[in-house]
């Protein structure tokens, strides 16, 4: 239990800091910490493979990409100076409304959980789902979805290359 609270606390605090930061490079690093905590939670949920994948894919690949972009763009800190000159709906005030909504969502979800009941007992004892079982399901029952995602990745890759490519210097 204590381990759960430790990981949960790390995840929540790190996530909060992610959105509290003005410097995106710290946001990225804190998010990695949050992912690490989530990875620990996955281990506790008997999902070691997801835990490791979380590290390899999220922390090791996606976040490196973010870090790269932050470095490439020289991580400009957030600009606030033109707030006064913009449309009223775009000022920071209305944006805090979004945060209020987020809080409302948490309340609603908690309410839903209490109303639904159940889910309060410990998890039923079960074998750790092996990598073999996951692989088997992935390549049989979910084979179509797997292929679709691979096409998605391919498309995204081509799209990213084209979008990020510098246009050739015009003669």
């Amino acid at each position: 239990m204590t381990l759960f609270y430790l990981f949960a606390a790390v995840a929540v605090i790190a996530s909060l800091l992610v959105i509290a930061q003005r410097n995106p490079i710290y946001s990225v690093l804190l998010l990695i910490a949050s992912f690490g905590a989530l990875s620990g939670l996955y281990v506790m949920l008997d999902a070691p493979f997801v835990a490791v994948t979380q590290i390899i894919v999220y922390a090791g690949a996606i976040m490196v990409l973010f870090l790269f972009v932050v470095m490439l763009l020289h991580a400009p800190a957030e600009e606030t100076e033109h707030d006064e000159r913009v449309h009223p709906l775009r000022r920071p005030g209305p944006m805090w409304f979004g945060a209020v909504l987020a809080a409302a969502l948490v309340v609603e979800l908690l309410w839903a959980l209490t109303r639904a009941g159940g889910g309060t007992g410990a998890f039923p004892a079960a074998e750790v789902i092996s990598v073999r079982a996951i692989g088997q399901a992935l390549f049989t029952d979910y084979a179509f979805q797997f292929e679709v995602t691979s096409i998605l990745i391919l498309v995204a890759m081509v799209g990213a290359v084209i979008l990020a490519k510098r246009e050739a210097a015009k003669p």
Partner: protein
Amino acid sequence: MLLLIPAFPLVGFLLNASFGRRVSKGVAATIACAAMLMSFAVSVAAVARLVGLPADARAIAQTAFNWIESDTLKIDLTLLLDPLSSVMILVVTGIGSLIHVYSTAYMHDEADPEYARYFSYLNLFAAFMLVLVLGANFLVMFVGWEGVGLCSYLLIGFWYQKKSASDAGKKAFIVNRIGDWGFILGVLLVFVRFGTLDFQKVAGAASQLSPEATFGTLSIITLLLFIGATGKSAQIPLFVWLPDAMEGPTPVSALIHAATMVTAGVYMIGRNAVLFGHAPMTLTIVAIVGTATALIAGTIGLVQNDIKKVLAYSTVSQLGYMFLAMGVGAYAAGIFHLYTHAFFKALLFLGSGAVIHALSGEQDMRKMGGLKKDLPITYWTFVVGAIAIAGVPPFAGFFSKDEILFRTFASGHTVLWGVGLLTALLTAAYMFRLVFLTFHGSRSQSENHSNHDNLLHHSNDLNPSNHSHLHDAPLPMAIALIVLAVGSITAGWVGLGGRFEKFLEPSFGPPLSESRAGLQAGLAEGGVETTLMIVSVVVALAGIGIAAYFFLKNRAAADRMAERFSGVHRVLEHKYYLDEIYDAAIVQPIQIVSEDGLWKGVDIGVIDRTVNGVGQAVSGTSEVLRLFHTGSVRAYAASVFLGAVLVLGYYLWR
């Protein structure tokens, strides 16, 4: 194995269409001819296998794949080889091969890319035609049916730079569409009525029914199918496209507009013989339409001056014969005539092509004459074809035509028989008019007409009135002509003693009328058959005689005749003014309605105003709504999120 038959020409098409423009003429022609010859070889092998089977089990089916499957509609791409389709594939691949060979020489003046384009179209046509005849259900047949229509359009308009050619192509396409409309409706109705589109299953289901005494569903189905047939096979009222189709290269006319495609309608009726057999009223209509077409086309053919037009009307007329046969239930006789006709009509067209080729594009018979000496091969083969079509024994046409007339007579349609006989007379007459005008007499008497307009665009290289340039058919053309001439003499012999009919019998299902043997037995004692035979031979010879009198011995008499009956002559020359009537009755009203009613009235008045009104309303509303669109992604996200929170809240609170 069956798949290979259409596959070879298709591959030939793909090769020539893809690479044809980059290779020499020889290569393109070799590819096309090889494709056809291989297809022919496979066809022969397949038919040999079919013949080897016992008579009641003669059907080979091959399913390529499941094509369409939707609820009860299950359609496989199946090819079926039975006696009927075996006759057809032999005709298509055999005569098709000869015409390919012929074309290598005939089209030799074309530029390389054009040459390859020609052969790719020709191959494509063969592939579609084979799909048409081999298709085991209506839909596969329809693929071929539409495909040959497309190829016909492409080939008629092959010289698309020439306006008359592209117009003729469009005309053929549009008129065919009208027929196809009937065909599609017929097919749909077949599916509604029988729940399947497979020929054999439909025939099986139909044979359980008793023939319709009144005008019922089967009659409607068959009538709709027959409308399709009239379009494709150029029958009244849709025959007007075929004469115009002569704008295409002559080998095309021979292959598509004489030997194969135009007979698709006849074949289709034969394929659905059981269905038609259960709709006697439709059969009567078929017989009457066929006879009328035969007569009308025959009369028009008598006065035409364009060598190919004569042959075109002759084709229409002969197709009328076939429909007559179908209409009186003599399916085998109709298919038999289809088969013999393919030989001699292809021969006649190719012969005329050789003449045109020799004269560098001249098609007007009045400017020909005396070509006998210069073109001996062409002449003699042409004469064989003419005798065959006239119906003189032992040439091919005699057997089939006589069979049709006999069956018509035997089925009790005496009037139709009489008209058919008259048409036979006309046939012999106009064919020999053609022969005498073209090959006999002398050219000098028509020399003064030589300010001709060149009909073929490439005809500027030779002066047609210059005898020194006359040359007989080159080797490939000569081969095709000779082979076809031999065929025109001998093709009819396979029908002796009713063998052809017996071979085809399984394809037409259980006979409704008495079999030929029965008929023979019934009529033999009176010697009716022999009498009829003698009558038709006499008629044919009479026709030849008339032609010889007017156009060989005494050409002035012909002009006098034309003058005396100038009214009739003009009507015939203008093809009964059918084109003009169609133009006034159909084309003009459609144009007027389209332009004044649909375009200026509906389109501009109603649709455009509606569209503009909607547009103005939208832009007016947008003026107001645009204020909510800040362009801020986060504001949008906030509204989406607000919606989500509210919906969730509603469900929780409820």
